[in-house]
């Protein structure tokens, strides 16, 4: 138990430090890398909470795909706009809002009549988090699961439609024209003798 507590404080410190760095660093690439570190640390915390599937999903899918995409966009945009910076200072407002939120949450969570459940015993060795999650996902939440899939599809189509550029000077394939081509359009038979070039 004590080891888990130690891990919790270690990961919690790294998580908060990386999150703070992600929103305050001026260098956007460093900020994006800090965001990746904070997500990775959060995945470790989820592992501590025995949510193994979501933890690995966060590392593989979220860090591996989404945040790397983020990094690409940051590098593409930031190279040309080094002057986007914080012209007005909202730091005091931001700290005040954050402090009030933490204080309120602390008051609610540390109130004497808030008695959360004790730490449950660790799951048995043969327990599979993936299996448990899948068995509710495909039965109780099947409709929500399909809706999430549709949302992802809409996001794919939307992102492509937003960023697709049709340039007039681009050479592109036109499958309709390609399949309409006949032999006599392309092929010319000669009788083997030299003929003047046309």
């Amino acid at each position, binding site marked *: 138990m004590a080891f888990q507590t130690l891990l919790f404080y270690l990961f919690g410190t790294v998580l908060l430090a990386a999150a703070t760095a992600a929103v305050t660093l001026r260098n956007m690439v460093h900020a994006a890398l800090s965001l990746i570190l904070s997500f990775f640390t959060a995945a470790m915390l989820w592992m501590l909470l025995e949510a193994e599937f979501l933890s690995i999903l966060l590392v593989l899918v979220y860090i591996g795909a989404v945040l790397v995409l983020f990094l690409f966009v940051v590098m593409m945009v930031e190279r040309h706009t080094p002057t986007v910076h914080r012209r007005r200072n*909202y730091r005091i407002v931001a700290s005040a809002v954050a402090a009030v939120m933490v204080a309120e949450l602390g008051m609610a969570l540390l109130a004497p009549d808030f008695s959360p459940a004790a730490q449950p015993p660790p799951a048995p060795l043969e327990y599979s988090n993936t299996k448990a999650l899948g068995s509710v996902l495909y039965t109780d939440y099947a409709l929500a699961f399909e809706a999430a899939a549709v949302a992802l599809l809409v996001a794919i189509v939307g992102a492509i439609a937003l960023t697709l550029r049709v340039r007039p000077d681009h050479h592109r394939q036109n499958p309709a024209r390609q399949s309409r081509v006949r032999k006599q359009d392309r092929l010319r038979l000669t009788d083997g003798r030299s003929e003047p070039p046309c």
Partner: protein
Amino acid sequence: MLSLTHFMLLSGALFAIGVAGVFVNRRHALVLLMSLELILLAVNTNLIAASHYLQDIAGQAFALFVLTIAAAEIAIGLAIVVVVFRSRETIDAEDLSEVRG
């Protein structure tokens, strides 16, 4: 001994950092998106902690859906940032006020 309060306080602090990031960087569209990501991460951590301490897998299923929608949101958000950057060569969120209402 770790309790639910530990995890909830941690995710509350993470949420507050995300909200503070929205305030500090309200001109920079990309950092706004990063702050949104942090806020959603805090929410997910909270859900998973509650799911573990109450021994109810539904919290994790919900966290999975939040993760899905967050990924969709970030894809669309980044696409919009790229389009805006292409057309105006800036991603300053306060310069994007064409329609004055």
